[in-house]
């Protein structure tokens, strides 16, 4: 978990720097400071379990097993990207590793994840579906629709609010009537917990409980993983809506440092070992960047591929010609 958080931290730092320098196309949203949510939850999952993410999903994809090379190449819009350059930063998908899809429509993936959960259930597997969403998604009506159906149908679904306290510039407590989305668990008759998500062990424990419940047929759970993003909403947002003191206080509670100190205190890791993991994570990301830079750009006319299944695409292209 320590290594994986560092890989996310480094990969996103690299992406952030490149995007700030104008070297990456499009919009880039990083999760720096929030890594414990992705890693704590995904560490409880199997390959066959499915994950649906958001516009801020590099961490979920890495934590679910996608390769740093394929993610970095996708961020650069190259052919070896996990989506071959069709998706970009907001859609890093790797179905082979159970990273089912990422939507950049806030709240748009919650139904999709419930559909995957229903598929798992109808197939009589004990696989689970995880939906990551931000606190902004709690403003969407479809969230409550899914909460209701997932409970009624006891779907194996983990609704994980990666709660960084701000939807874009708006502090969630200014627009939200309840204090924690885990408070909704009781009226919807499901299990829920509010978690200090800068402590990965808390995230991991809550996710284990939720996943175990889902696997044995006890239905969905909702986890309010309270954390903080160190950057603005996306590259280019200076975050003027919050104070330097607030940001600094959260940086003091870095989830990666927290786990390092925890491991060192128990002598499960020493300083030299930690430094080695740091270096390895950096090297992994450097390798991903050089791999991505050498990956070919897609030919422009490749834009015609992948819109439909092959037989329909053929008909469509004939109609368009």
């Amino acid at each position, binding site marked *: 978990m320590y290594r994986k958080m560092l890989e996310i931290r480094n990969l996103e730092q690299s992406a952030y720097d490149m995007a700030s320098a104008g070297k990456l196309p499009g919009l880039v949203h990083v999760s720096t400071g929030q890594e414990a949510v992705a890693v704590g939850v995904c560490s409880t999952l199997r390959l066959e379990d499915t994950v649906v993410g958001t516009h801020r999903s590099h961490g979920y994809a890495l934590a679910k097993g996608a390769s740093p090379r394929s993610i970095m190449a996708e961020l650069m819009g190259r052919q070896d990207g996990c989506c071959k350059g069709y998706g970009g930063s907001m859609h890093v998908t790797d179905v082979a590793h159970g990273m089912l899809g990422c939507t950049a429509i806030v709240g748009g993936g919650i*139904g*999709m994840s419930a559909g995957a959960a229903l598929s798992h259930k109808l197939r009589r597997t004990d696989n689970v579906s995880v939906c990551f969403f931000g606190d902004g998604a709690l403003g969407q009506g479809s969230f409550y629709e899914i909460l209701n159906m997932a409970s009624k149908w006891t779907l194996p679904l983990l609704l994980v609010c990666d709660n960084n306290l701000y939807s874009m510039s708006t502090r969630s407590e200014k627009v939200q009537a309840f204090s924690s989305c885990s408070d909704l668990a009781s009226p919807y008759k499901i299990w829920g917990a509010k978690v200090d998500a800068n402590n990965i062990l808390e995230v991991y424990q809550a996710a284990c409980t939720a996943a175990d419940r889902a696997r044995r047929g006890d239905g969905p759970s909702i986890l309010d993983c309270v954390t903080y993003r160190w950057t603005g909403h996306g590259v280019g947002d200076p975050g003027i809506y919050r104070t330097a003191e607030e940001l600094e206080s959260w940086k003091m509670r870095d989830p990666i440092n927290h786990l390092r100190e925890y491991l060192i205190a128990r002598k499960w890791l020493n300083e030299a070992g930690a430094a080695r993991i740091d270096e390895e994570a950096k090297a992994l990301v450097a390798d991903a960047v050089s791999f991505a830079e050498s990956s070919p750009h897609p030919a422009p006319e490749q834009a015609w591929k992948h819109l439909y299944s092959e037989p329909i695409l053929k008909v469509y292209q004939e109609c368009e010609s």
Partner: protein
Amino acid sequence: MRELTYIEAVREAIAEEMRRDPSVVVIGADVEDPHGGTFKSYKGLSTEFGSDRVRNCPLSEAGFTGIGVGMAMTGFRPVVDVSFIDFATLVTDQMVNHAAKLRYMTGGQVKMPLVLRTQGGGGVSTGAQHGQMLEAWYAHIPGLIVAMPSSPQSGKGLMKSAIRNDDPVVFIGHKGMHFQKGPVDDAEIGQGIPFGVAEIKRAGRDVTIVALSTMVQKALRAAGRLSAEGIEAEVIDPRTLLPLDKATIFASVRKTHRLVVAHEAVRHGGFGGEIVASVVEKCMGDLKESPVRVAAKNLPLPFAPEMEKFVLPSEDDIACAVRLVCGRTGG
């Protein structure tokens, strides 16, 4: 030949596909027996296949369409029922941003075998929120297939294709034909009616009428009357708007040199504009007259029958449009 109503024909298509393929499921509001769907569209199916495969949902259209998207991505073939296309406004995000885009955005990693089964259509005083035709919205979205059956035969054939196909289909019926009977020829349907292949419903040399949904029936009746006046109209049913079989339309216009397009949706921004524009771009030199669109007036559907009839396009409107493009207005 067997005669079935439109509702029976489409239900038969779904039942046959459900028997053939256990991954086919129906989700939506009121779909389970004894009600069996708002228009009895699924009558008997939950009894035969169980409520795991024909699932009643709360009135959460956006939510259960999202569930359909997720099921389609993970190996099922959901038919998502939204009984009135007016309510499909609630599922537009799931269809436009998700169903239509996920295969593409993921570089082909997922399939999207999803059918959004809905119906539009006025004429029975259902008012402004239960009778619209909104096909043009969906036909604007690359990644979707838009199917518009005009008969029990095309209803059954297009639904079989919609279910078997690996892409999202917006399947738009018309309430006015639900209980009309018509012949259903299973041998001709076979595995399903292919998408992007128009049907020439009536051959003619003088004018091409491209008609959508129930306007096909009105166009055929108008063509019968016009024949007595010495005008032979060719009537084309595109059957799918996306993909659109432009080749068949162009070939017809090159023969007849005249075009009328008929649909029940309002004229402004309607799909007729797209057909006319495509013909003008490719066949300008073949046209002897300006094309004419027959469509609803640019108004919401009023409730009172007299006003509703005034707003909706009729068989007479098609006949008048044909006489206009054929230069027979004086007669």
